[in-house]
């Protein structure tokens, strides 16, 4: 009995000595990474344990861990907006020296992703993460319905142009409302499953897809944190009003607190013609096309400008980890072009130029070209260390206006600025 206990104990000590833990959100790409990592373990003998947290709790769980200087994670694939807090509060290891030593060059990665996922202050050459998972908000649609001659001719008769990938948000609205309440194959269908979630970041990610396309800027480019007239510009107001119209005219009933999974469910169950979601989900959606469903994908439509909401994450080494050397070894392995190619092949979105610039890349999947297009036009929410404090008032005010129908778009944006000024003042930025 004692021998058994000793041998079990020594096994657990041995396994811990060469293992690291990686934290990420629980979603399709995480499974692909788990699969990919088997090769790392085979090459190095280092076991990688994974802790995947569902999206609604992801930020709470990870940020609490970092704020408490927790040692649970050695590696963290954290959201792009966390980079400010990761750097300023010292949660992430600065990787410049390591990159120099190992010959990892940030110029090998797509510039938009390096800017968004790795640098703090923004645009500097201080790197706190390796771009791990490129992502942006995009759209999937029921191509099989779009190809039906009777629907095509009816749409053309009504709107004077062809049913297809919308060239702008007005066309998107035309198409979504065309399907709203329409009976197809004996079932009632709806227009679009869009982001309306209240609790974390859902509705903000959705509405900014419209606001960016209308040309909204968060602040005066010449005077940081000066938001009046930029964030609540007439274009921004129009975009928010449009998003509400899209929700009222085209969302399925009960779609009032919906984000990634709810949008996927609405689409997969055949309720809607369009869904707004992250590229990360398109491999799964494409693979699961069956029973006549054919999915098409397109980048966020432009309105006044071409723009898309940035998603995606970089991989960082947690400062409080006792196994930073092993964690860095993982990053070194993950940065290799051959590993990046496998990452894309398995369903992850590589940010490495060798993968993205390969001549075969745009045709490698039906959504690859859209991904390339999107990554050239992405814009992100504030990446300030106080980003959660900035996110919460936006969630509340936008949800109140779009879903609840309370007040005006201008009033909602003014209220957000008011709260943001308070946050920046408390943070000493204003």
């Amino acid at each position, binding site marked *: 009995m004692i021998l058994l206990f000793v041998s079990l104990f020594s096994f657990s000590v041995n396994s811990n000595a060469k293992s690291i833990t990686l934290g990420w959100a629980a979603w399709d790409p995480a499974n692909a990474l788990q699969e990919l990592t088997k090769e790392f373990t085979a090459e190095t003998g280092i076991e990688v344990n994974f802790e995947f947290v569902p999206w609604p709790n992801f930020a709470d769980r990870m940020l609490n861990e970092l704020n408490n200087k927790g040692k649970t994670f050695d590696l963290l694939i954290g959201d792009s907006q966390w980079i400010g807090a990761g750097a300023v509060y010292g949660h992430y290891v600065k990787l410049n020296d390591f990159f120099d030593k190992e010959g990892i060059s940030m110029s090998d990665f797509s510039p938009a992703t390096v800017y968004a996922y790795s640098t703090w202050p923004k645009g500097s050459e201080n790197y706190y993460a390796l771009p791990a998972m490129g992502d942006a908000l995009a759209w999937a649609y029921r191509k099989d319905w779009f190809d039906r001659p009777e629907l095509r001719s009816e749409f053309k008769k009504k709107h004077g142009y062809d049913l297809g990938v919308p060239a702008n948000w007005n066309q998107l609205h035309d198409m979504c409302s065309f399907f709203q309440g329409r009976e197809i194959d004996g079932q009632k269908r709806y227009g679009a499953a869009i982001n309306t979630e209240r*609790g974390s970041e859902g509705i903000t990610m959705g509405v900014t897809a419209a606001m960016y396309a209308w040309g909204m800027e968060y602040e005066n480019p010449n005077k940081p944190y000066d938001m009046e007239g930029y964030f609540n510009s007439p274009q921004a107001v129009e975009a928010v009003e449009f998003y509400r119209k899209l929700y009222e005219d085209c969302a399925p009933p009960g779609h009032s607190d919906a984000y990634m999974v709810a949008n996927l469910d609405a689409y997969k169950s055949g309720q809607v013609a369009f869904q707004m979601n992250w590229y990360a989900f398109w491999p799964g959606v494409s693979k699961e096309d069956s029973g006549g469903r054919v999915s098409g994908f397109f980048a966020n439509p432009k309105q006044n400008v071409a723009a898309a909401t940035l998603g995606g994450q970089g991989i960082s080494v947690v400062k409080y980890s006792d196994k930073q050397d092993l964690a860095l070894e993982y990053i070194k392995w993950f940065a290799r072009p051959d590993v990046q190619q496998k990452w894309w092949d398995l369903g992850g979105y590589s940010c490495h130029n060798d993968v993205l610039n390969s001549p075969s890349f745009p045709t490698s999947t039906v959504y690859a070209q859209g991904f390339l297009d999107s990554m050239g036009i992405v814009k992100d929410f504030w990446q300030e260390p106080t980003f959660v404090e900035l996110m919460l008032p936006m969630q*509340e005010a936008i949800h109140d206006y779009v879903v609840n129908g309370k007040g005006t778009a201008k009033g909602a944006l003014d209220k957000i600025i008011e709260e943001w000024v308070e946050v920046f003042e408390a943070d000493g930025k204003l």
Partner: protein
Amino acid sequence: MSVKKKFKGLSDKAVGWLFIGPTVLLLLAINIYPLVYAIKMSFTNFYANKIGREPQFVGLKNYIKVLNKEAIWEKMQVTASFMFWTLLLQAIIGLGLALLLNRKFKGNELLTTLIVLPMMLSPAVVGVFWTYLYNPQVGLFNYVVNFFYDLGSFDMIGSSTLAPWAIVIVDTWMWTPFTMLICLAGLRSVPNYLYEAAEVDRASKWQQFIYITLPSVLPFLLLALLFRGIENFKMFDMVVELTSGGPGSATELASINLKREAFEKWKTGYSSAFAVILFVTIFGFGNVYVKVMNKIKER
């Protein structure tokens, strides 16, 4: 000296302390210390996520800020309305069910068990499955309502008019059995001879209810409402799962707002002040309520 002898020499008081000592220590560690620490923090500008930034003493600034913030009063109004309607409905329905189950009929025990089931469930689970029941397309709730009265498609948790009622309905469904059980205990403690004497005096059933049943069961009902009031003032999990405080902030109760300020925005000093205000409010109301309840009992 042997252990046996040592304990033999202990006074009754010492043995008493020996028994309650661990509990007192635990209470001090997990209740009193955090409370004192929160009170201390409420006078500072502490942010728990801003590592290395020393908290500074700011006096009553956080309290003034909380009390002057319009949004806080909106949350308090939402909380007060939620409490009023849930307590009212739970008192009426709970007492009604208790009166029903106090009668002897076939299947009484089975019915009691079935009625009590909802309060055995986890509030978070209840919140999640009611989101499905409220679904305008496939939800059972909407189907049942439309079966009796055709309202067409309506979204209980997506409308600011209906969402506050959505949380009231779920809380009432879940916790009315609790009020019912306490009232039932009260009803079963009423001696039968009172009713027999009333019968002799030719009192009607209504008079028996007003002059015997209600006064006897009232202290029990008030006690149940005190427990439910305290719980509903702190209500968090069920509402978060059901509406996330939305749409907008239509169902954002004070406790949900407090959690967002404390553990999402990390405004530790400010949220400590808010927590202290909530604590004083519920403690104050609780004390007044207990005094009123005791007076009713004495009558």
